[in-house]
């Protein structure tokens, strides 16, 4: 049972990430692979905040959000100049830049050695030390982000995003300054990924730069492709499938040598088959 609780915590963290990424890729059509960078910044804000600055968990979340908003604002400005595949490659480049800063800025991030001993959230004296309590808190935040996603999806703001993802010029003629909309949704999704990073850091109690590489950005992109673009439920389902798939294979009892590689093969095959038979994912409402 404890095992499932742990899995559920990871599932809720990746649902937060998938929802925030779907806001950028699903709703506004901008294929950003830089999400892992904001996820990392949020995680490091909490790690450094709780270990060396002695801040509480929720203050570090605010700290992470402030840093992420500032960086996403600048990054959004740079990215706004590009379109489609250029946008994807430049965002991948930015993700590599942030990763190498996390790796090489040893004085602050302790470099490759990572940061250990990250505390648990404390609310009015009660420490979320037990996994089930931590899961409750994580699910609360996931639900909040889910509700925010649905709210945006239904609001006029969301309608403009879904319009500009297909025909930015026409949306412009309808009287919307599309540049601002794209940058606001980019900044918002960066802040939300930061929250997911904070939960990850506090759950694992140790983080190092290798988790926040470009590979993770591509993994997050795959989650919403499989789950379905521009759909809140799709993001959740995508996270569920891609988090539980390796676990299911772990119990199938494959021989050690090939277990790890076979998992990757099945994961790759899933991608190819999805793109052939169901390109917009299980619950997708937007075909790229």
């Amino acid at each position: 049972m404890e095992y499932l609780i742990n899995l559920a915590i990871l599932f809720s963290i990746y649902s937060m990430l998938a929802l925030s990424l779907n806001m950028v890729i699903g709703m506004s059509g901008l294929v950003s692979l830089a999400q892992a960078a904001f996820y990392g910044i949020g995680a490091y804000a909490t790690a450094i905040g709780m270990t060396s600055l002695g801040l509480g968990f929720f203050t570090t979340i605010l700290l992470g959000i402030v840093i992420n908003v500032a960086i996403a604002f600048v990054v959004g400005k740079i990215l706004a100049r590009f379109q489609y595949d250029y946008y994807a490659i430049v965002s991948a480049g930015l993700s590599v830049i942030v990763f190498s800063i996390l790796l090489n800025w040893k004085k602050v991030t302790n470099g490759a050695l990572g940061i250990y001993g990250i505390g648990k959230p404390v609310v009015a004296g009660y420490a979320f030390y037990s996994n089930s309590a931590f899961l409750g808190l994580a699910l609360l935040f996931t639900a909040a982000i889910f509700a925010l996603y649905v709210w945006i999806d239904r609001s006029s703001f969301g309608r403009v995003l879904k319009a500009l993802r297909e025909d930015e010029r026409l949306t412009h003629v309808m009287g919307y300054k599309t540049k601002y909309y794209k940058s606001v949704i980019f900044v918002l999704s960066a802040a939300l990924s930061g929250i997911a990073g904070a939960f990850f850091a506090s759950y694992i109690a140790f983080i190092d730069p290798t988790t926040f590489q470009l590979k993770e950005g591509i993994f997050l992109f795959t989650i919403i492709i499989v789950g379905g673009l521009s759909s809140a439920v799709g993001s959740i389902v995508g996270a569920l499938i891609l988090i539980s798939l390796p676990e299911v294979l772990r119990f199938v009892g494959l021989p050690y040598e090939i277990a790890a590689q076979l998992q990757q093969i099945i994961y790759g095959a899933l991608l190819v088959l999805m793109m052939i038979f169901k390109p917009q994912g299980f619950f997708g409402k937007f075909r790229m």
Partner: protein
Amino acid sequence: MKLTDFIKKKTPKSDSSAKVLPYGENIITCTHLNKQFMGIKAIDDLSLQIPQAKTTGLIGPNGSGKTTLMNILTGLIKPDSGKITVRDKHRTRIKSNELRTYRIARTFQDGRVIEQLSVEDNLLLPVAKNTLWGGFTEIKTDDYQSRLEKVLDITSLKDHRHKRAEELSYGLRKLLEIGRLLMQDADIYFFDEPFTGLFPEMVEQVCDIISGLQKQGKTIVIIEHNMGLIKRLSDYIIVLDHGTLLAEGEPDAVLKNKKVREAYLGV
């Protein structure tokens, strides 16, 4: 671009009661407009006026610059030189996202709609709040509901309201685009070949819609090749040829004009 200035942007309150706007004779004038594309002069030192509260037919052989002119007047293209005056505002160019503030609405030649959005969303797009914070907080759109129902009736899209635009036939797409135009309650309406590709009964439907607008004293500009429709609908005609003004005036006079016949019929 300061962060603050895009938060507190306000749009002027649009009152739909004003029937005929008490501006001067012409609602849009452009002087010495020029636009060149890769060596070809699409618009060559063009100066003309669009009469207010009248329907202007914009005609001319293919490639005469009709669509380019319309794109310039609606901000899609930046003219190389020249000035445009909309009511009392003088501009060297119009930004397409300011069309709302100028109360201008337009359709596109190829029936341009947002494919993967529902018909309703397509119709609500031009009227929803266009400030960031306003858009964020606006979920219920009941103050546009009545207008939406009316437009759905006029464009006979009532039972397609929840379908995605990509599921509509070509004719219905054109009607959806016109519906989007009607939603906007603008003063100046630009139609770019609204009739091409429509069945006869749909042509009648669009004519009724346009005459409805004419009764409200709106200014209308139509690009159309079908002379019969032009004569039937327009009070005023502008003829373009190779980006220059060939002739303008009352429909009968202009269509009899020798130069116009030559340019059109090569006779």
